[in-house]
Structures are given as C-alpha cells and as structure tokens.
C-alpha cells in the first residue's frame, strides 16, 4: 500500500472549506465584479454565517459595514478570500492572527514579479503559522468553492443557478473552467456535490483537493481539470484513495508542464513527455484520463448513466442494425488503437443462425436494416451479452436520436433492458451529432451523439473496466 502524504486532518480541513462557519473578504469593493460575484454567491444559497468585509480605505472614509483590518474581526474568520495582489495579498494573509478554515487567493493575486517567492512564503505560512494541520490555501488564481450539500456557493466562477445537486465532485485548476464544466454538467442533468477551483495549487494542490473530495460520503465520482500534473507521487495517491473508496476519478489535463525533460539523451528520457508520464501513471493507479474538458463531460455522463456499474470486461462489442454506423464507430475507436475482437465461435454460430449469414465481420456487427423483428434483435444482443468476452456494448441507433419511430425506440429499449439485466454497461450511439445532448435518454445506459463522443464514452467505460478489474485482482 502506498504511503499517503496527506493526513486525515488535512482532508477534514478541506471539507470545512466547503462548509465554513464564517466568510471574510479582504479587499472587498462594491465596485469590483469579483467582489460582488463572491458575495452574491455566498448569499445566494441562504448562507447563515457572518460575512466580514475588509477594506481599509472605505473604513477610513466612514462607510459602514467595512472593517479596517482582519484584526477587527470578532470571532471566527471562517474562509478568507483575499482580493488583493502581490505583496499586499501576502501581507493580508500574514496578518491573520487566528486560525481560519482556509484561504482563497483570488485570480491575479500574485501575478507580478517575485510570484514564486511570494507563493513559497504563503506555503510556509500555511504549514507553520498555526499548530495542527496545514491551513488549506487555494490559489493564487482560485475562484473559490461551492457545495450543494452545505449550500455554500463562495465562488464567482459562472456556475449555474440553481445548481443541480448530485454526487459529482469537481476540481479545476482553472476557475473559469469550473463554471463552464458545472454548466455543461447541469445541462446534461448531472448533479454536482461540490466544486473546488484550485488555481496555481502550490500550497493545496489539485490532487490533494481530489483526494479530499473522494473522502466525502456524498461524492460518488470526482472529475478534475488539471494543468500541472507534475506531482506523480500525489497522482498515485489519488489512484490509491480512488481504489480504497471505490469511486472513479476522471481527469483531463491541459497545459502540460516540463516534467520529463531531464536526460533527454536517453530513449527513456526523451520519451518521458508530460503526457506520457501522466497517461502511464494514471493507468498504473487506475485514474481515468481523457483529453479535454469536453471529453470530461462525456466521460462523466457515460459512467453515471450506467450507474457506475463495473463492466465485466474491458472488451468492446459494437452492434448495429441500420446503415454503416457500426463501421463509423469502429473506425473512430481504431484511430485510438482500440481493437474490436471477434466473438467466440459459439456466438458466431448463434448470430449467423439468426439470419445474419451475409455478415462476414461480427464485431462490429452490422445486421442491416432487414432485422426488424424484436425477438431477433433481442436474440442477437443476448448472444453477444452471454459471450463472456465483452463488457462494454455499443448499440448503433442508425436512425439517430431521439429514435424516429416506435420500432426504432423498441430496439433501443430491448438493448438497454438486456444491458441492465446483465449488470454491465452500454452506449446507445447515434453516429450523427443530431439532437440536443441529454435531451433524450434511456434508463440504465448512456447515449452518445456522433462517432467521436461514442468512442470517448467507450474508452472511458473500457478504462473503468480495466481499473475495477485491477482493483479486484490486487
């Protein structure tokens, strides 16, 4: 078992950031959009705790409601937002005289010369200023946090209102992208438990935030947008906690950092690009990886629509009855190096005996438009389901989504029903990007619009199968 660098106290500390007893905004100004965004966010959920607004100039000008400094706060600081920049931001943090729940350094906070030195001092302060565990510090470049469980929405990232409560924990190094992802998830009727905009992540990192969310009982899936994945040790710990808690972690990485540049004169060094290191260590420890925020949404939907069931096998079967859709999806999978294995000889005989004599290739299986008899469709699907080779099934909705006729609808329902009965996972895929995403769904399996989305969802479910099989074997 891996040795964890994050303590349970630190994890609990990050949980308190999502449900703080008070909030303090240093540098608050009613003329500033970020200030108002954070304040309105906190207030919108009916937050009952005290909110302290600190602005020395407005206090000295005699405006009511403003404190001159944090020293004037009577009681708990709660979660402290710092809307100042550079040395002023650091000085504000250093002036905090009793332990806060956490600190959020807003975007642009240290975007000036000497930023790294300031961040290192901030990190030292978080670790040493108060007895006990490190103080959680998000940012610089953080846009705050939210939790639908606690009703605290302390962020000015453009999250939807109202937010759909659910079991997804969202971590993003980009504050703006946290809001974008939250809106896209809500559009697809995927509920969120919490969100953390980590920012630069020098003190409290993106991987530590993911670990903390995995420990929340109300979270069943954590998705993350990562810009600095250079701490492979913490990434391995994310995988270990994911295994311990039995919850998938799905990551998209952007802005690759130069973690593999050393000793490039060796093959081993030259090949060590950030992307390869991230991909390899993610696979090693069962963390699911996609390539973009868009794929993150699709991947989350694939897992949740299938009720986070564990596929029995990572092998994919593509089945279709109309047109060349099965081939289009198989082509898209092939571009990623995903091979489709032919079924066993018993399944082959069964499928051929059911009127598919014309089919020379049985994975992808293209049954043609003639097979409209529901009992034949079910028998063919069941033949693949009982093969034992496959775990992830892709059914091609050749007429598009939503299904244009009762017969087409019936075929999809037969497929979904069989998948649910078998306890495995499936995708109903339209090869055309038609229809509004999430506008038509079917219980127990996921839908996909277009061959790219279909292939991404298939890959995520395949990787989830590999992860859970490794968990079981270990």
């Amino acid at each position: 078992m891996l040795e964890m660098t994050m303590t349970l106290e630190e994890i609990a500390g990050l949980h308190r950031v999502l449900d703080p007893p008070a909030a303090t905004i240093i540098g608050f100004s009613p003329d500033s959009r970020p200030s108002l965004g954070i304040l309105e966010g906190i207030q919108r959920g009916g937050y009952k705790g005290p909110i302290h607004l600190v602005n020395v100039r407005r206090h000295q000008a005699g405006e009511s409601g403003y404190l001159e400094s944090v020293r004037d706060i009577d009681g708990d600081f709660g979660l402290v937002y710092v809307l100042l920049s550079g040395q002023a931001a650091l000085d504000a943090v250093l002036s905090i005289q009793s332990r806060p729940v956490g600190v959020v350094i807003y975007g642009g906070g240290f975007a000036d010369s000497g930023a790294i030195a300031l961040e290192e001092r901030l990190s030292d302060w978080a670790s040493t200023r108060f007895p006990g565990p490190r103080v959680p510090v998000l940012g610089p470049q953080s846009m705050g946090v939210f939790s639908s469980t606690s009703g605290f929405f302390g962020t000015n990232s453009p999250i939807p209102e109202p937010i759909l409560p659910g079991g997804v924990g969202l971590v993003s190094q980009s504050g703006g992208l946290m809001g974008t992802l939250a809106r896209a998830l809500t559009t697809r009727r995927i509920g969120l438990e919490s969100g953390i905009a980590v920012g630069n992540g020098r003190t409290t990192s993106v991987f530590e935030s993911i670990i903390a969310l995995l420990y929340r009982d109300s979270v069943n899936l954590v998705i993350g947008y990562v810009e600095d994945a250079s701490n492979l040790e913490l990434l391995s710990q994310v995988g270990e906690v994911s295994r311990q808690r039995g919850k998938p972690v799905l990551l998209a990485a952007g802005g690759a950092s130069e973690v593999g540049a050393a000793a490039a004169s060796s093959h081993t060094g030259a090949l060590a690009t950030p992307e390869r290191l991230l991909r390899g260590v993610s696979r090693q420890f069962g963390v699911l990886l996609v390539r973009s925020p868009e794929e993150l949404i699709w991947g989350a939907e694939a897992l949740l629509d299938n009720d986070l069931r564990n596929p029995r096998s990572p092998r994919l079967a593509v089945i279709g009855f109309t047109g060349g859709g099965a081939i289009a999806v198989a082509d898209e999978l092939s571009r990623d190096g995903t091979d489709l294995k032919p079924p066993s000889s018993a399944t082959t005989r069964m499928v051929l005996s059911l009127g598919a004599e014309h089919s020379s290739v049985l994975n992808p299986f293209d049954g043609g438009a003639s097979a409209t008899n529901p009992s034949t469709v079910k028998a063919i699907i069941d033949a693949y389901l009982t093969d034992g080779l496959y775990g992830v099934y892709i059914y091609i909705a050749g007429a598009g989504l939503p299904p244009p006729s009762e017969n087409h609808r019936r075929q999809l329902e037969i497929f979904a029903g069989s998948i649910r009965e078998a306890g495995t996972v499936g995708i109903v895929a339209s090869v055309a990007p038609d229809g509004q995403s999430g506008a038509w769904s079917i219980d127990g399996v996921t839908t996909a619009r277009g061959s790219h989305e279909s292939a991404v969802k298939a890959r995520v479910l395949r990787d989830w199968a590999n992860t859970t099989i490794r968990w079981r074997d270990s």
Partner: protein
Amino acid sequence: MKQTEGVAAVLTGRDAEPYLRTLCVNWPHRAVVVDGSHVSDICRSFPCFPAVVKAEGMSHRNQSGAVWTNISSYEEAEVVVMGFITHFGLPVSISEQIPHSEEFILGGQRRTPKDQLLCLFGRGGVTVDDQVTYFLSPLQESQLLAELRDYVDGANYQKDLSSAVLSLEASMKSGPAQAAEAIDLNPVVFHSLSHQLFALDAKVFIRSDLAP
C-alpha cells in the same frame, strides 16, 4: 565511455556491464574489438554464427549503416569488422544474432525533484514510438502484468517482461545500478526458438563524477 551534453556519461558494452548484471534478461554472446591487431583472433574464435557486427559508442547506428546482420562466417566477420574500423573507428563488437519478431524497450529514469524512479516499457527497436508506458516506482507485478497484455500476447512472455522490469527497478533502487540516472535496454526480444528474453543493446547514463 562517451560524454554527452550536460553532466551525463553514457556507458555501453563492457563499461555498462557492472550496472546490468542483476537484470532478468539474457545477453547474446558478444566480443568487442578494441585493438585492430586482434580482429582475426577474435573473429576466428567467435562461436555463434550468424552474427551481428556493430560500431560501438555511437547513436543511431542503424541509420548510419553501422549495424550489419546475418554475418554467416568468421571470414565474413573479419572483413566487416575491418571495414567498420576504417569507417567508424574502434571499438567494434560482434554479437550472436538472436532470431526474433517483435522488439521491446525497457528502461529506468530518475526524475527530480524527489529522485523518483520511473520505469518504461513498450514497443522498441528503431521504431520506438508512442506505444510505451511509464510507471512510477514502486511497481507492483499485478500492475505490470495488466499493462503488458497490451504489448505482448502470452502469459509467459508477459511474466518474463514483468520480471525484467522489476529487476531493473530493483537494480536502480538498491542494486548495482544505483548510480545510474537512466538505463535503456533497446531492443529487448524473445528468441524465436528458445523463447528466452534477450537484451540486444543497452546504454547506462550516469553522472560523469560517478563513472568508473
């Protein structure tokens, strides 16, 4: 020993052997010509033909024409070795040719800031490309075996490659290769007849101050 940019020194051939002796791979029978006056004696006493003749101590040898295969006799070996000495200089090696199909790469790489060890495996040879995977030490055999299914069919082959990677990790962590910054074994192949795992080439990258 060959100096490369920065602080690294690259060890090949006999220089590298002390770092590689505990790895779970076989090595082809091999002789190295370091003195032109010994070419005839070395070729005539070499026991394994067909053989491969290589110019040592240079990169991208295949592209430079510095690797000749299917050398069928000591007479032919003598001619080729003399030609290599003329074109590429000393040293020149003559090795047992291992019949094989697929080629793999195995490697280890230390990484700052925490001196983490990364182990690499995947498709190798001259076409080493995207089909490689990095794992972070400490490795577990079950993780390796699950991943190696993507690279090679057959449980025995997977097991042998896994053992080789684990032995490389152990050597770099606490064995003879502790001083190595990186190790490349490329290509690594399965003998077509014996099915044993062979490393056909190896490079050890160490800091200059630690080089013997």
